[in-house]
């Protein structure tokens, strides 16, 4: 790093209302950067890989914080910390899948600072991209991670389209399983986005990981009671127990009556640029008991269509084993 290298000039805005923040986001557009807990942002800045002209610090907006009960579930402000979510009694009681996923995010220090919005909107951890190389995702013409000599152990086995990066969010699969809705606001108004539609793969948008526009702010996440108190399972496999991103994770929500699965939503993280819903597995487990036999019968369905890279074939048996484990009695 050259000796003259210092933090670049960034104009800092600290709005105290969502309206002001949305107005700023609309005015600054691509030049602006939304700052929440900073756990993704500061990495980019320290590596000098991104250099926004202006930063909108959302910390002063109280409306973005906290967990509220609504008529049909709960609403979580986007600035609510991951620790608050992991420890919140309502979430632990009714939507423990999210609490469990939140408890697996990074490390205690990062969970204390990191926010739900930041965890959902964080950029991919592909190190070629994070290094600042001019890959497809950075607006370039190639993918450094998918070549025959590339380091792609952590990358996608599904849905790659030129870019092979994966979503690093632990809470994303849980929220899709819970049929959550994201609320995004801009100066032009608010819109609701189904969690399933919130994340976007490279085939549709190769430079963004969510459908949020440059002028939009994720203000909250609503979780309906549809899956409240269902049977949940979350497991994350990573190289370290803490402070690491998932190689593969699984988030399941199941409604079980009389020992038989009546409905299920099963998702994997770390295998695609979006949380991957295992619909073939979901369809097959309905009407069957939750036990090892069912797990063995459906596990292979989880990986149909997988296209592993040369260093991540291990994700195939890992996904199948996670499905088996999620379906154990």
């Amino acid at each position: 790093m050259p000796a003259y290298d210092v933090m670049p000039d960034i104009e800092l805005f600290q709005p105290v209302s969502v309206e002001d923040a949305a107005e700023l986001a609309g005015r600054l557009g691509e030049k602006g950067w939304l700052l929440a807990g900073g756990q993704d942002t500061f990495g980019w800045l320290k590596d000098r890989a991104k250099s926004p002209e202006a930063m909108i610090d959302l910390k002063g907006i109280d409306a973005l914080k906290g967990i509220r009960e609504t008529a049909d579930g709960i609403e979580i402000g986007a600035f609510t910390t991951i620790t608050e979510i992991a420890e919140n009694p309502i979430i632990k009681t009714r939507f423990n899948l999210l609490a469990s996923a939140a408890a697996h995010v990074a490390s205690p220090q990062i969970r204390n600072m990191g926010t739900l919005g930041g965890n959902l909107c964080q950029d991919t951890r592909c190190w070629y991209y994070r290094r600042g190389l001019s890959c497809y995702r950075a607006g370039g013409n190639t993918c450094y991670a998918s070549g025959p000599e590339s380091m792609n152990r952590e990358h996608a086995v599904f849905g790659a389209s030129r870019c092979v990066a994966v979503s690093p969010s632990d809470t994303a699969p849980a929220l899709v399983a819970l049929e959550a809705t994201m609320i995004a606001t801009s100066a032009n108004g608010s819109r609701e986005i189904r969690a399933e539609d919130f994340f976007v793969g490279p085939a549709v948008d190769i430079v963004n990981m969510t459908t949020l526009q440059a002028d939009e702010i994720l203000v909250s996440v609503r979780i309906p009671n549809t899956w409240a108190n269902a049977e949940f399972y979350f497991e994350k496999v990573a190289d370290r127990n803490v402070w690491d991103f998932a190689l593969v994770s699984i988030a399941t929500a199941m409604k079980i009556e009389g020992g038989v699965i009546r409905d299920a939503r099963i998702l994997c993280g770390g295998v695609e640029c979006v949380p991957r819903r295992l619909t073939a597995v979901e369809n097959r487990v309905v009407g069957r008991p939750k036990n090892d036999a069912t797990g063995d019968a459906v596990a292979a369905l989880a990986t149909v269509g997988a296209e592993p890279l040369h260093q991540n074939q291990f994700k195939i048996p890992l996904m199948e084993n996670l499905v088996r484990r999620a379906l154990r009695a």
Partner: protein
Amino acid sequence: MDIAKVREDVWGREVIAGVSWDLLWLVVVAAFVVIIAHIVIMLVLKAKAKASDAGKRLERHTPFDRWFHWVTAASVFVLLVTGVFPIIGINFSWLTIHWIAGIVLTLAIVVHIVRACFWQDAMSMWIAPSDLSEPFDDAQKPGKYSLAQKTMHLVMSVLVLVVIATGIALFLQIDTPWWERSNAMTEATLGWMFLLHGLSTLALIGVTALHMYFAVRPEKLFYTRSMFKGWISEHELSANHDPARWKPSE
């Protein structure tokens, strides 16, 4: 306004990354200005009386030629939509549709070249020196194709060939059902391919806009009809072409 985007490659060297898509708006505005200017000029000039479509019908385009034209037009249209819409912010899963349309266009052009070389009079579409006086001499009428049509064909041919050649090079850089991407092209070469592909695309947008404009001009509509139905009338032939240089069959 830049013509090319420049980026650093993996070694930190500056390389061309592709065309600057700001040029898209320049092309759109330029095409619009040319069309408006032409409309004004045509309004000022005395309009030529429109030839009647009654009477004997003479074949201008065979069914095969018409099919070729519309297949080519459809594939170019799909290629432009799938290539340009994501750039202007309309996101959808475009890549597979794009390369399938590219294959259709390539096959159509290959068939057309072979047919034109061995079964048709390829020179009838080539610009001869004698054609150059055509715009300045009211008495000189063209054979089957006017100088304007030959010029449009020549420009389209060059642009489509460039877009196909660079498109094939770029096609090799993505995964398809038949191969995995080669990853063999350097970033500098890849950037040049993207630049040429982008420039030819931008030019195609402009030329296609002009082509469509001329296709719907009142005095040219009979050509458009002939591209649908195949025929022009005897009056239209004598008013716009030299029967001595082009003798169509009935």
